[in-house]
Structure formats: structure tokens, C-alpha cells
């Protein structure tokens, strides 16, 4: 038995723990310092209320969420219905290609307008103005109560779609 040899891994493990802690401390100091020195507009608070974020609310409600790439695929897929949850005026000012107007406040009445186009299994993408609005989530929940099963929320909404160069159409709903 070689006592010096058996001590080597232990000593090395202690060194590794110390060296890893040093690297973590350097990263922590740099991260904290740079975040503190950032202009206020880009500084990230150490804690935000993510529980109220629209995607958290959708996750808790069991409504699947998609992002820009998924929204593009669905807009390009004629089998998917695209529903705009904002008011008719907002829809008229600009909406996603193929989108139908279904303001959340009028969903109970207006859903009948689309009864011939939507079945419970029709894939549906709902959106509103952007990450700060909850109309689309509320509409998705309402549609689920109506019996629609294949619902997806696009939380980025029109704002993100437009920011990334997506086609935006104008005009009142038919």
C-alpha cells in the first residue's frame, strides 16, 4: 500500500473544489459588477416576478406555447386557423397573414361566425399584441371551454412578428 499515493486523489479533489470555487467567485463578481454598471434600461433586477409572465400563466393553464419559428410554420400551414384576439380596430390596423378576427370580449357571440371553418380538432394559433397582453391567453382558455382541443398560444404576438420582418396585413375583418 502506498499512503502517499492514496492521499493524492484526496488532495487533488480538495484542490479541484477550491479552484472551482475560485472560478465561480470570479464569474459571480464579474456578473454582479457588470450588471450593476449597466445603464438602467438594460440592467436586469436580481429577482423578477416571473409567476405573472404570460408564458407562466399559459403553462399553468395547460395551453401550449409556441415562438416565432412555430408561429411561422403555423401561418404557412393552411390547416391551422390563426385567431387574432384583439379588437376589430386593432385587427384592421395590422394582423398576421390568414388571421381571423375573434376579439376575446366578443368570443362567445362571434365564435359562431366561424362554426363552418373550425372543428374541435382544428389546430388553432391564438395571438394578440405581444408579450404584455393577455387577450390571446384568455381567448385560448375560452376556446378550450367551447371544446377546441388543439390550441397554441403565440405570446410574442404581432409585435414580435413585425419586429422580425413578418408580413403584416391591414384591413377590416370580412
Amino acid at each position, binding site marked *: 500500500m502506498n499512503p502517499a*499515493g492514496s492521499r493524492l486523489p484526496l488532495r487533488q479533489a480538495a484542490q479541484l473544489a477550491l479552484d472551482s470555487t475560485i472560478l465561480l467567485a470570479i464569474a459571480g463578481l464579474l456578473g454582479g459588477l457588470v*450588471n450593476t454598471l449597466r445603464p438602467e434600461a438594460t440592467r436586469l433586477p436580481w*429577482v423578477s416576478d416571473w409567476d405573472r409572465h404570460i*408564458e407562466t400563466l399559459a403553462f399553468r393553464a395547460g395551453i401550449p406555447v*409556441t415562438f416565432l419559428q412555430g408561429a411561422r410554420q403555423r401561418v404557412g400551414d393552411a390547416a391551422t386557423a390563426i385567431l387574432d384576439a384583439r379588437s376589430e380596430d386593432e385587427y384592421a390596423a395590422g394582423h398576421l397573414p390568414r388571421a381571423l378576427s375573434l376579439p376575446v370580449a366578443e368570443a362567445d357571440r362571434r365564435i359562431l361566425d366561424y362554426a363552418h371553418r373550425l372543428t374541435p380538432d382544428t389546430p388553432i394559433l391564438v395571438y394578440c399584441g405581444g408579450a404584455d397582453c393577455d387577450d390571446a391567453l384568455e381567448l385560448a382558455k375560452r376556446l378550450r371551454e367551447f371544446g377546441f382541443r388543439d390550441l397554441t398560444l403565440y405570446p410574442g404576438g404581432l409585435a414580435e412578428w413585425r419586429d422580425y420582418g413578418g408580413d403584416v396585413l391591414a384591413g377590416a375583418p370580412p
Partner: protein
Amino acid sequence: MIRARPLFIWLARIAVAAVFLGACIAKIRDPEAFALATHRYRLLPGELVNAVAILLPWLELTCGVALLAGPRRARAAAAFLLAGMLLVFTGAISLNLLRGIEASCGCFTTRADAAVSDGWNLLRNGALIWLSAMIFLNAWRAPARSKTS
């Protein structure tokens, strides 16, 4: 004559360091977008999301620099931490794929039009874990080799 193993370890260090140094840029530039990408994994409590978004890119940067230019002990620690991070990232991506959560990995870009995570992310991470492990073992065994030689 060039010995194959030192050359391989040297190339592995450059490759892994380059990946992580490249990966931290977008996250440091836009911490809010990276916080959202972190939140989309739905694995961390909300209270920890921002702290991770603030600190993780700097850990990637620190480890990348240590791997590239640090002494042997720093390289071992950096490779150890990077392998650990990669294991956590891979577990998180796997879990999201299993749960059917459609999200980009947030690895190299925080843009909204980033590709959604898929099996390629797991393969890439697997390769990086293997390279990090090789670098770590090489640095870890160096003193033992010098004692026995």
C-alpha cells in the same frame, strides 16, 4: 514528431473554449432575453431565473478563458465546471423535449427566431461533454503521471 494525445487535448481545449466564449456573448449583451430563454425551460423557480441569467454567461466566459489560457489546475476546474454545466443543460433540454415544450435552447442566441431545440442539441452537448471530460482527465492525471515517472 508531434505526439497525438497532447495535440488532441490542445485542440479540444480550443474547441470547447471557443464554443463557450461564443455562447456567452449574446447572453451578456442581452441579459433580459437570456432570462426569458432560461424561464422557458420551466425548471427554475422564478426567483432564481434572473440570478442565473446574470451569472451563467460570466461563468461560461471565465471557464472558457481558464480553459484556453489558464494553468493546469485552472484548466481542470474549468473543464470540470463546463462538463457539469453541459450535463445540466442536456438534462434540461431532454426534459423539455420529453414534455413537448417548444423552446429554443438559448445556447448561442437569444433572438426570438432561434431554432427550437431538438436531438441535434443533445448530440452536440454529448460531444462537448466528452471533450470536456478528456480535458479534465488529462489535467487531473498530470500530477500523478509526474509522481510516477
